[in-house]
C-alpha cells in the first residue's frame, strides 16, 4: 500500500487552490494555473500518495458529451460506400437533445471483414455501439462486438419494423427478409 499521507480530504469549490505543482500533480477534476493545482469541480479532494496527485471527486452530475468508451445509440443517416453517418441520440443510457453527429467506418462494423456496408446498415436503422474516437472532427462509433449493431431496422420495401425470426430479419408486414449486422439485443433494446 502506498504511503498514507496525513492530508485531510475536504469539500471544495471551483477555483479553490489544492496544492502547488511541486507537491501534487493535477488529477481528475482539477486544473493547473501558474504552477498551482486548483479544483474544477464542486466535490471532495482525493489525494493519491502513490501518484502524487490530487483529484476532486465531483458531487454534481456528470455532463453528457461523447467520450471514448461511451455506449451510444444512434439513428443511421446517409450510408456511403465506406462509412455511414449517424445521429447519436443516447449516450450511456441518457437521451440527449439535439443529437450528436457521428460516423461509422466500414472497418468498425464487425470484427470480420465487411465487404459491403449495405449488408450491415441501412438508412433509418437504429444502432447501438461504442464511441471509439472523438478527435477526428466526428464522433466515431464502432459496432464491432456481438453486443453492438443494429437494434431496430425498417423494411426497405414497405417500411415495417423488421423482426428477428429464427435468426432472420423478417418484415412482419410483407415477408421480406433482409440482412444487417444485428446486436444481441435486436428488437429488445430499451430506448424509453
Amino acid at each position, binding site marked *: 500500500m502506498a504511503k498514507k499521507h496525513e492530508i485531510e480530504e475536504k469539500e471544495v469549490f471551483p477555483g479553490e487552490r489544492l496544492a502547488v505543482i511541486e507537491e501534487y500533480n493535477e488529477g481528475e477534476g482539477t486544473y493547473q494555473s501558474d504552477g498551482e493545482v486548483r479544483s474544477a469541480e464542486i466535490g471532495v479532494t482525493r489525494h493519491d500518495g502513490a501518484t502524487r496527485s490530487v483529484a476532486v471527486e465531483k458531487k454534481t452530475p456528470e455532463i453528457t458529451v461523447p467520450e471514448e468508451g461511451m455506449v451510444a445509440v444512434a*439513428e443511421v443517416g446517409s450510408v456511403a460506400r465506406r462509412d455511414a453517418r449517424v*445521429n447519436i*441520440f443516447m449516450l450511456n443510457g441518457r*437521451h440527449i*437533445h439535439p*443529437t450528436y453527429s457521428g460516423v461509422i467506418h466500414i472497418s468498425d462494423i464487425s470484427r470480420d471483414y465487411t465487404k459491403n456496408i449495405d449488408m450491415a446498415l441501412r438508412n*433509418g436503422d*437504429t444502432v447501438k455501439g461504442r464511441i471509439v474516437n472523438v478527435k477526428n472532427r466526428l464522433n466515431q462509433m464502432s459496432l464491432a462486438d456481438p453486443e453492438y449493431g443494429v437494434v*431496430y431496422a425498417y423494411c426497405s420495401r414497405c417500411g415495417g*419494423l423488421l423482426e428477428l425470426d429464427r435468426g432472420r430479419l423478417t418484415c412482419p408486414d410483407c415477408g421480406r427478409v433482409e440482412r444487417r449486422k444485428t446486436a444481441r439485443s435486436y428488437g429488445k433494446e430499451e*430506448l*424509453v
Partner: protein
Amino acid sequence: MSNNIVSRLKRKKIVDVVATGKRMDGRELLQYRDLEIKTNFLAKSEGSAEVKLGKTHVVVGVKIGIGHPFEDTPDAGVMMVNAEYTPVAHPTWEPGPPPKDAIELARVVDRGLRAAEIIDMSKLGLISGVKVQMIFVDLYVLNYDGNLIDACSAGALAALTTTEAPEYKVSKKGEIKKTDKTEKLKLRAHPLAVTVCKIGDSLIVDPTYDEEEVKDGRITITVDENGNLNAIQKRGPVGFTLDEIKKCINIASEKSAEIKAIALAGE
C-alpha cells in the same frame, strides 16, 4: 423531439399501460397531478400567479396599461393574451418568435376568458375612441412537462382574480392620470380549461410531455362555474365519436370544478 423509433416504442409502452387503466407515473386516467398556485407574488404586475402542475411550471403576469381601442368598439377596453415558450423550459425549445403551439395556447386560453365575458370591457373605456385600459395577460412557461393549456388557464384565472386594477382619472383637458387607488378586478365568470387526451381507446386528463407526444388527439373544453361551456378546441389527426365528445364534456365539467377550488384560493 424524439426520433421515429423512440416515439414508436414510447407510444407502445404508454398505450399498453393506459389500456390497463393506469398511467406511467401511477396516476388514474382521470387524475390530475398535484396543482399548486401561488398568487400575487410579483410587485410590478397588477396581478400574478405561479402555477406548478406536476413538473409543468408557468408564471402568469397581468399588466394593466393604457392603449388605443379597436375602431369598432371605441369605448371598450382591450384584453390581450400572449404566451411565451422560454428556451429554459425544454431542451427542444429555442429562442425566437413564438412557435405555432404557443400561439394556439394563447388563443385557446384567450378564447375561454373572452367568450365567458369574464371582464366587463365596456367599463374600461377612458376617452371614447382614443384611450382605453388595456389588460395584458402574459403566460410565461418556465418548465414544460405537458398540459400547458390547463395550467395556463388556471394561472390566468388565478392571476385575474387577484388583480388589483389601478383607478384612472381623466381630467377635463383629457389627461389620464393613474391614481394611487386600486380596486380588485371584477370578474363576471370563472372559466377553466380542461384538456382530455385520447390515447388508443382511452381518455386521460392532464397529460405529461411523453403522453402528449404519443397521444392521438385532444379536446380542450372551457367550463365556467355554472357548468356552461365557453370554448372548445379539438386537435390531432384523429376523429372523436359523439359518445367520446360527450364523455369529454362530462370530464371537463367535473374536473374544472376540482381545479376551481385551487385556482380561486387566492381570491
